[in-house]
């Protein structure tokens, strides 16, 4: 499946600019996106896939046959797959603040002619969704058959359901939460501290050639541990040593797990921008769905009108099953029909990218039922 990266830009005038939660206005705003399948004549088969923290709009397919890897959810999206591109029109857009094509700290500030860097406004999940709304308008999608996403993607899906109830027929929040726990905020803080204290950070004014790679790599390694589980790390690495028969009484990497994390950190530095990482993690910290209901989660969810299919993973200790159950409890309180499956998995938070078979089967059934009720709802 060959896919073409596209960009939609709006907000060239002050009237058209995107108002942000922080009070500032942003414009022009570019949103990078990709689509698969085609929108039917009633525009009733559109699904928005929202990506996670450091993801991109490239959810499926390849740009060229020779690409080594397809998009990040390629096992889920395509002809005959759970997100069946023969039936549905799938859209994935890169979040505001990212470094993968949408406007973010690496973009040029038209007022200065230089990259925004740390002068980029602090953005929120609500801002990300408001930008996606503009894209939906442009694409001619009045109402999504479903808005779906894992992790930060799930937060966007929840935000859509509550902030734009008339535009969401169903919502599939996966491995996500209505608000970050203090523990998760803590991890984000430590990760950002690693970046901010890297001498090469230079207040965010580093060059492309000399990024704060140490800080960014440490942030990624730390975060990566929170995406795994104790069980999966045991299974994957145990206490096995990396190409040595005994420990070497030094602080070099000895264990396989160290080598793995090192690799994760280094490869991340090659593909992600430190400033974007600061902004996007901050957006997740700030996310609290309850704020849409005056501090009350149930009041916030009362604004929604869609069906919810909530999926969590038993070993996810970043966004725990208990956090999904909070959503469930609020929806039951509202006398809504609720779907919640806690998939038994050892893969931790990353399970939403790995348990494709189970997840695919849940998604496939949920979507086809939702498609049947679209229009009645």
């Amino acid at each position, binding site marked *: 499946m060959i896919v073409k990266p596209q960009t939609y830009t709006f907000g060239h005038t002050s009237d058209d600019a995107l108002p942000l939660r922080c009070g500032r206005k942003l414009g022009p705003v570019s949103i990078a996106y990709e689509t698969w399948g085609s929108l039917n004549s009633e525009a009733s088969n559109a699904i928005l896939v929202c990506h996670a923290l450091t993801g991109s709009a490239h959810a499926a397919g390849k740009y060229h046959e020779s690409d080594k890897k397809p998009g990040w959810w390629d096992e889920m999206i395509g002809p005959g797959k759970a997100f069946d591109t023969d039936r549905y029109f799938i859209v994935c857009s890169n979040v505001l603040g990212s470094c993968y094509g949408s406007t973010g700290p690496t973009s040029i500030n038209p007022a200065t002619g230089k990259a925004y860097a740390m002068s980029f406004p602090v953005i929120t999940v609500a801002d990300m969704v408001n930008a996606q709304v503009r894209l939906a308008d442009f694409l001619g999608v009045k109402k999504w058959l479903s808005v779906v996403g894992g992790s930060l993607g799930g937060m966007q899906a929840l935000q859509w359901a509550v902030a734009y109830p008339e535009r969401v027929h169903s919502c599939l929040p996966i491995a996500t939460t209505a608000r970050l726990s203090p523990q998760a905020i803590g991890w984000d803080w430590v990760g950002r501290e690693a970046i901010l204290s890297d001498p090469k950070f230079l207040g965010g004014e580093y060059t492309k050639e000399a990024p704060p790679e140490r800080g960014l790599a440490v942030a990624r390694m730390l975060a990566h541990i929170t995406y795994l589980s104790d069980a999966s790390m045991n299974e994957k690495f145990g206490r096995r040593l990396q190409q040595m028969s005994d420990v070497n009484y030094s602080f070099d990497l000895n264990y396989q797990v160290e080598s793995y994390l090192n690799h994760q950190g280094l490869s991340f530095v090659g593909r992600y921008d430190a400033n974007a990482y600061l902004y996007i993690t901050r957006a997740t910290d700030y996310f609290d769905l309850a704020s849409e209901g005056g501090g009350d989660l149930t009041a916030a969810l009362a604004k929604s009108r869609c069906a919810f*299919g909530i999926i969590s993973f038993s070993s996810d200790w970043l966004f725990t099953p208990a956090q999904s*159950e909070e959503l*469930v*409890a609020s929806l*039951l*309180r509202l*006398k809504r*029909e*609720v*779907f*919640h*499956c*806690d*998939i*038994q998995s050892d893969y931790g938070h990353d399970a939403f990218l790995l348990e494709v078979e*189970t997840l695919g*089967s*849940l998604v*496939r*059934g*949920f979507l086809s*039922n939702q498609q*049947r*009720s679209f229009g009645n709802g």
Partner: protein
Amino acid sequence: MGDSRDLNPDQLEILRIIPAGSRVLDLGCGDGSLLERLRDEKGCAIQGIDRDQKMVMRCFQRGIPCIMLDLDQGLAHIDDASFDYVILGRTFQQIHRPVRLLKEMLRVGRRALISNLNLGHWRFRTRLALTGRCPESDGELWYATANIHQGSHRDFVDMARREGLPLNACHPLGASLLARQFPSLFAELLVYELGQRKAEA
């Protein structure tokens, strides 16, 4: 909707008892067949709970709202009086603290319907008398079965009285006059209705 199976006799009885338009919660709802019929035939608002991932997945696929929960953890997620009817179909015997669950059912719903096997049925009595052996349950040996709280009709009625659970009605299954007249001996399966007598709205 595809793979809907026939209901068990006790499920058919529950389908008959529940008035149209009720809000119904089915605990241990399995693949959601009963809920599906309640929704389609009686216009009920439905919600299922099951602890088995396979069953929850079936419900997802069939569009039956279901959440994944182990009933031994109680129903803390659910507010008081959220439902008109709460169903516990052939699951009572697997619950570690069944009385606590029955009280929870009456907290979250106005009425509870429980279907349960009667170990006092004459066939079980005869088997015990003649062979000296307990009945097999679900094809499992007595020490391997998940059925840990099995009793007779009389035991159930007795429990309701001791624990102060308002037993409103018993519905013995089977068309025979004997089953209705002498359920303790002749009804293999019963549906018990807990809740206040004048609860109908």
